[in-house]
């Protein structure tokens, strides 16, 4: 069936519109950080103490002194911090006008994004992830969805700016360097496994992007907290970041969620490779880097789960793992040739 040119054009326009709207959303998130409401001074001062209460359950003991200091303080501690850690907002500040504007823009952008992907699929009469342009478009969409879920569930609005930066960059690359016209799939991709393998890769990559941005924020917040602990003046903007422990844990949970999906993507890829290439594993560059990425994330999880590493060391491992993921996506697609070359870029 020939490509539906009108649909293809509609898809291109929708995705351009998406980039514009996301950029505006990014500005609004930045506006929140620059001009939004501050957390109350009093709360801010109590923070190191409260944070401790929330973090490691095992450290509850350290708060003995806090407990006996007076009912008032205990009450605040109890009400404020554990909540943060579990299911409710890491950021106690209610959504201000900047955030509301940013969220509205993000939602509009996401709607256009999803429509852009759907129309692309309609234009080419197939699932729209057959080349790198479509793949990156879908991954960024996944990242925005994961962000919105976290924003709704954990009120993690603060992530907005940090997630929008890579998303806008990725879509920008799509519109320029990676752009590939809509067309049918190459025969190698004629298989229902594309819906399984690539979808899993897209979802897990989207999740890992959000986890990595959370970790970058964590590193900022942690440095700020260290400064505050030493008594030096904390940067005004830094003040608005959530507590490092909260970010650390949010990021860890996000990886825990994404890792099994990534593993599934690799196994599905292996099954497909057995169908398409006659072997389930052959150390093709993409396979090799998928394996390296898997090991790196497994090391991160293991370091936290059994070795009890947390904080900066674990964060660095996670960012390394994310680097491998990105290298597989960008480096392997563009600079290394292998069987798995569907980027469609020449």
């Amino acid at each position: 069936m020939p490509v539906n040119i009108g649909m293809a054009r509609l898809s291109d326009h929708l995705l351009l519109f998406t980039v514009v709207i996301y950029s505006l959303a990014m500005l609004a998130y930045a506006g929140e950080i620059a001009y939004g409401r501050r957390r109350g001074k009093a709360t801010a001062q109590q923070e190191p103490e409260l944070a401790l209460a929330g973090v490691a359950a095992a450290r509850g003991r350290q708060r003995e002194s806090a407990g006996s200091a007076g009912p008032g303080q205990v009450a605040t501690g109890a009400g404020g911090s554990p909540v943060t850690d579990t299911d409710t907002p890491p950021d106690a500040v209610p959504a201000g006008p900047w955030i509301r504007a940013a969220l509205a823009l993000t939602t509009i952008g996401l709607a256009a994004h999803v429509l852009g992907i759907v129309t692309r699929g309609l234009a080419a009469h197939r699932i729209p992830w057959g080349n790198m342009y479509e793949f990156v478009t879908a991954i960024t969409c996944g990242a925005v969805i994961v962000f919105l879920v976290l924003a709704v569930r954990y009120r993690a609005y603060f992530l907005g700016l940090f997630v929008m930066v890579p998303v806008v960059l990725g879509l920008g690359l799509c519109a320029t360097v990676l752009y590939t016209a809509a067309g049918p799939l190459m025969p190698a991709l004629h298989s229902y496994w594309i819906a399984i393998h690539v979808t899993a890769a897209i979802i897990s990559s989207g999740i890992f992007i959000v986890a990595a941005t959370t970790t970058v924020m964590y590193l900022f917040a942690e440095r700020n907290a260290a400064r505050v602990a030493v008594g030096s003046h904390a940067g005004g903007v830094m003040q608005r970041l959530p507590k490092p422990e909260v970010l650390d844990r949010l990021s860890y949970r996000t990886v825990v969620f994404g890792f099994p999906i990534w593993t599934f993507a690799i196994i599905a890829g292996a099954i497909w490779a057995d169908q398409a290439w006659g072997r389930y594993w052959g150390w093709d560059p993409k396979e090799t880097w998928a394996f390296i990425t898997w090991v790196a994330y497994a090391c991160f999880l293991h370091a936290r789960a059994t070795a009890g590493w947390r904080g900066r060391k674990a964060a660095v491992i996670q960012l390394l793992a994310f680097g491998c993921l990105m290298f597989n996506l960008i480096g392997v697609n563009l600079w290394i040739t292998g069987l798995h070359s569907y980027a469609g870029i020449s």
Partner: protein
Amino acid sequence: MTGARATGVADQAGQDAGQYLPKDGAQEETAGQPAKPFGIMGWLRWCWRQLTSMRTALVLLFLLAVASVPGSMLPQNGTDPTKVQQYISQHPLLGPLLNRLSLFDVFAAPWFAAIYLLLFASLAGCVLPRAFRLAVSARAKPPAAPRHPARLPFGSAYRTTQQPAEALAVATRLLSGEGFRLRTGDGWVAAEKGYLRETGNLLFHIALLALLAAVGLGALFGYKADILLTEGDGFANTVADYDQYHPGRAVAPGDLQPFTIWLDKFSASYIASGPLRGEPSSFAASLRYQQQPGTPIRRYDLQVNHPLNIDGAKVYLLGHGYAPQFRITDGKGRLALQQAVPFLPADNTDFTSEGVIKVPDAQPDQLGFVGVFLPTEVASDGQLSSAFPAPLNPAVSLVSYAGNLGLNSGAPQSVYQLQTSGMRELPIEPRPLFPGQSMKLPNGVGTVTFTGYRQWISLQVTYDPGRVPALISAILAVFGLLLSFLVRRRRLFVRVHPATAGQDGADTAGNGTEVEFGGLARSDVAGGFEEEFVALTAAIRAAHQVTQGAAAGQAPLDESASASLGSTAGQGSVSSQGGTASAGGTASTDSTTATGATASTDSTTGAAASTGAAESTGAAANTDRK
């Protein structure tokens, strides 16, 4: 590792909580200890312990990942030997060095094998003893409760009006109902849960071993073979018929499945217009095959992603190309060659293909040709080129040689290369020949006719008995990994003492019980034990019919307990609701309720304070009902 972490927790707990912490099978208990080697045996044992420690296994896994990096960056002999040669000749210094280090054969290199064999040994040595230990601990009971459970990292203490025996029975029933494994003693119960964590961990390791074994199975008993098949031809699954054949170490030629395959027709379609013009859109090869001599012949439409499975051997469509057909007569006018000669695609977008025709039977001179096949010939200022991959206007162009092909010299020759050392190029202007056209060679050495073309496909036949075991192992490994990440091992302890009179004036001796409740979890990184502990506390308190009467200012039984619960009181509303509900239930007898309300000294100050509003409402409801 175990030691370090346990101590850390104990420090924070201000008590020897470490000894109550569930042991984690994921952590070696031996490697952390300094070894005292006695002679050679001691050293060997020490080495074995080091090798089989979890940390070593992890390091090896990590090394395996790092070691595979060069395999993805440098050209590899296994996939593209010509690129390797190119690389070596372009880097005269570095190339040979890398070659010596097997860096062009990373995945077959001895050092790569060393890493995974060590990993295999490490896993085996780690898993077997642990499986044994797990089997033993499968029936093991949790340790006896500490003297003061409330001083564990999570703790709570309160009073109930129930008698000690009853209070204990209530708690035991509740914990048992929650699926905890129990051990009871005089005035205490110890409960443990989350054994699946170790099981999952073990499953993961065993599955990893099985995965490596499955890969080994394939390498021993599997084979891989390639063949190029032209339309109208067939081949049998025998070593002799294949162009390339790579048997596993334990495969004998007689083990090959006795099937035969014929290629009737191959068809490819390409995108005809638009920006993706020339990209292929589908390939299909219509085959006939016979499972073994004497069985019926079946048809199969072979496509990429749809291999043909015959007796466990899979046949894949790997590539395709054109085989122009020639009819060549020699200098004596005799027919010297009439066949389709496969040409290899030199350009995958327009399918310009190159090939060599050797005519050893030609006399008096042998003939040889180097040719180009253009599926859609277009003339552009003297340059021959193809505009489209489909055969819309097929043409060949030949450079002709006469002389000695050198086939009898004994040295093996590629069918795709012409050895021109014993030949002379014939002085004839190359021009494109279209189907049916002939070219007379100078000096009467012969005539070439391009009669048409056929298509060929390249097939790969693989047999790998390890593929299904590998898949099952991979799935089990993931499943085990999930269990070990998501399940947490935790222990809870309840201790009851008869409440002593005097600590609380209104109480009479023997009329109440002090309950201490504590718990701890190992590797609760994803969080969640807090919530579980709070919910369980609430449930047990409710079962103990404790009402929330204690005001924030009241002296707690155990201050530290209040502090530790303070950190968990985010769920305070849950626990207080439980308390309120039960208070409602016990409100029938005035005196009991009243006593209960004042007597149950609630130490969980944080919770009480934070949910003060809810508490007072509960109390009010109580009063109302009275």
